[in-house]
């Protein structure tokens, strides 16, 4: 089994926001989705998912209400607030810029010094 890397600090919030942005979703589904989309490359301990959700809710980036699932059970569905959407956009842009910059540096190192 391939070793999984830990999620870089602060990216869990970004990933959660992104997943929730696709539509109202409950905690378990978020955990599933995280696992699928990351193709088991990153390790998201389920234990840290819920504190993160509650923290985002407390900060007003997420809101939640209780709805029925397809199986007829009641679950807590999270959705993005206006503030959360703005946060997602800035954070995503930041992330993009950061990864591009890091990639640039890495390529530069491969090309050798002038």
């Amino acid at each position, binding site marked *: 089994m391939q070793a999984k890397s830990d999620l870089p600090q602060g990216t869990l919030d970004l990933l959660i926001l992104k997943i929730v942005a696709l539509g109202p979703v409950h905690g378990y589904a978020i955990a599933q989705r995280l696992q699928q989309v990351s193709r088991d490359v990153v390790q998201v301990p389920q234990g840290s998912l*819920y504190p993160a959700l509650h923290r985002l809710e407390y900060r007003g980036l997420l809101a939640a209400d209780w709805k029925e699932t397809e199986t007829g059970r009641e679950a807590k569905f999270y959705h993005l607030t206006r503030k959360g959407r703005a946060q997602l956009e800035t954070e995503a842009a930041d992330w993009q810029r950061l990864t591009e910059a890091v990639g640039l540096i890495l390529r530069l190192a491969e090309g050798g010094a002038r």
Partner: protein
Amino acid sequence: MNWWKRLWRRKQMEEQLDKEMRFHIEQHTSELIARGHDPEEARRAARLALGGPEQVKEDCRDARGTRWLEDLLQDVRYALRMLRKNPGFAAVALLTLALGSGATTVMFTVVNGVLLKPLPYPEPEKLVLLQEKTEKATRLGNLWAFAYPNYLDVKRESHSLDMAAWRFGGGAVREPEKAEYVYGRQISSDLLSLLGITLVRGRAFSPEDDRLAAAPVAIISSNLWQRLFGGSADAVGKPLVLDGKSYTVIGILPAGFQLEGETDLDVFTPLGQDSSPSMKRRDRHPGISVVARLRPGATLAQAQTELAVIGPHLAEQYPDSNAGRSFIADPLRPDVGDVGSTLWLLLGAVSLVLLIACANVANLLLARAVSREREFAMRAALGAKRSRLVRQCLTESAVLGLSGGALGILLAAAGIRPFVAFWPGSLPRAEEIQLDWRVLGFALGVSLLSGFLFGLAPALRVPVRDLERRIRSGGRTVAGHSRRLHGTFVISEIALAVVLLVSAGILGRTLLRLSSLDPGVNIRNVLTARMELPPATLANPKQILPAWQDVLDHARRVPGVESVATVDTVPMREGNNQIGYSTTQAIPQPDQLPLALATSVSPEYLKVMGIPLLRGRFIDDHDRKGSEIVMVIDDVMARLAFGNEDPVGKRLWIPDNSSPFSEGPTGPEAVRVVGVVGHVRHWGPASDDAAKVRAQFYYPFAQVTDSLLHRWSDLMSIAVRTTSSPLNLVEPLEKGVRGATGDQVLTELRTMEQLAIGTLAQQRMLLLLFGVFAGLALLLACIGVYGVLAYLTNQRVPEIGVRMALGATARDVIQLVLRQSIGMIFIGVGVGIAGALVAGRLLERFVGGVRSVEPMTFAMMVSVLVIAALFASFVPARRACRVDPVKALRQD
């Protein structure tokens, strides 16, 4: 959702959290089952994947951001439950704290009202006090009240200050029934607007009113408005007869108006209407008070720079009067006299009591903490963090401190008025003494701080290591650590109690010594009162002496009056007149001239006051204008001026600028000494020995030069010796001296006994309160000693059992316990004596007549404490020696 809503809906949120976790696990489980896992196995795997639902929940609660508040509430609830469960402990601790913080709050309320509150005018920080300052200082210093012309000039030239002025006023107001003396001020027209006072009725003075020969108008206080006009709306426009002159009332001041802290001022007239010639002079002037308000944008520094320019400018213009004279501005502050030091001393003393109270409660808490060790160890073992446990301990003590503080505030609220009423004489700014936000803040701070103080020791004992041993030991074994801490508390309590006891002792001895001092006059059955002649009489100097003679004759005819005299400065009352004298005709420089207290009297004064005549004769009816000018000196002055020679018949010289016998430059005035009398403690028994000017002489009022008679009469009092209690004679005497016009009234009626007691008021008040505080301290310290020894002895019961089983006698056991307490008591006394020496120095510095180092006082007060403390430790010792060894051993 904001935090308080979250807190409010805590229960609901807990349920939802639980539901969310359950949903997750069940969902995961069913999915695993669907993939073919065994149901039991699936449930376990789901739980494992989540990482322990309880832990996740805890983390979620943390993420909510209201965690600290929830913990706090939980701790507070827990603390309250603990208090309810131990009502005895709670009652003792709360009562101790309530007393300590209540007394401290009362003292702080007084300090706050009298010393800390700003003046009761809008924007008080912009008010400044202006004074004249001379280059050369005389015996009275180098700061002076303004001359009226100087005030007008400075006011005109200043750009940064709005200025206003006032001077002493008031007089007899004639009412239909009887005349009454009212206090008042002559004020410049802009004073009220400058201070920011709005009249409740009528109008303020206009600049037109503030001139010579303008129509006489007056503004009166709300109080006088009620007394004279019954508060009727048409009082404005009515006439008011003051000192025989009719004024029109044009305005009424709001209730509670005060000037210079005086609240009993009733009549205000325009300063500019004062026609006395001295108002036009820049030297030998009556002096007016000047207050100013910084104009918008101006600073005090600007004003000072500006004044520094105006001063020399005026000095150039009027070199005779203004050479070397400048003008200075200082922030205007409430004048509270010397009461400040007394109040700070009392606040200091009462904080010592509070500290003792804290030490006592700390002892109680510490003892409880030791017995709760097991509980804490258990919680630590279950995963509670140390910081969490420490926080809980501190929360508990803060709850205790705050509850005690709240009770203390209630005590203070109930006690503050009686306390102020109880203060001898009157406290300056007494009307400002109220519980306000500052006092509440102080009380809150004090209770939190004390909570922290006494909560710290138990909190730091929260266990971290040896959890298992502690849980097993059941909190019975005492670590040496705790015993040392208990010892430290007891030692500090004893030390603090020693400081208070010795201070009270020092004050008591001082009061005893001062009260036994001979004031130099026979204070029994003497009544004194200020009195003023009608203005019509004063206008003619030829009428003044006969008028006073007439007053004396009428007073003498009142049944019960033995003798009566006029006197300008009454011993032990405020006011004195210091005059320089020389033993040679060539008078030395003014600053090298010895000073004496000069008193102008009528012949019977010696008899009225019961002052012993030592040599020669006293002033008699033959000393009058035209005859040789005479004086009678006291034995202090006799020794200073003439050494061992007989002063009678010798001459002294008085510089012409201060001579009461002539006015104008006539050369040194020769005065014949005709007699020597005993010294009178004019400054009161406490301060007289240390006073700068003690020499005294008496001179005949009948020989005062005509032009000064008016001014002398303004300050005149009469003194009456009576055959029975002088207070019974007040009414007949008032009737007797009323005079033809009926407006000669007596004010400031005091018996000499009252005046003598008044001079020791500060000492008496301090002694009383220090006595109360010391008593409290003694009681608390004894409770502390008893409590700690009882507790420690109780902890040592098994050890004592062993000792007794091994053959120790009851005597040995008592000794064992007492040795422990004697150690603490003696260290405490040692520390306390060092503290008491410092406290004694403070008392010596701030309280008149105190001698700080009196070994007898120290010995007495310390032995009181040692005996009480030994007695307190004897009770647990006795109990220890009755320990049944068998039972004690079985306890383990």
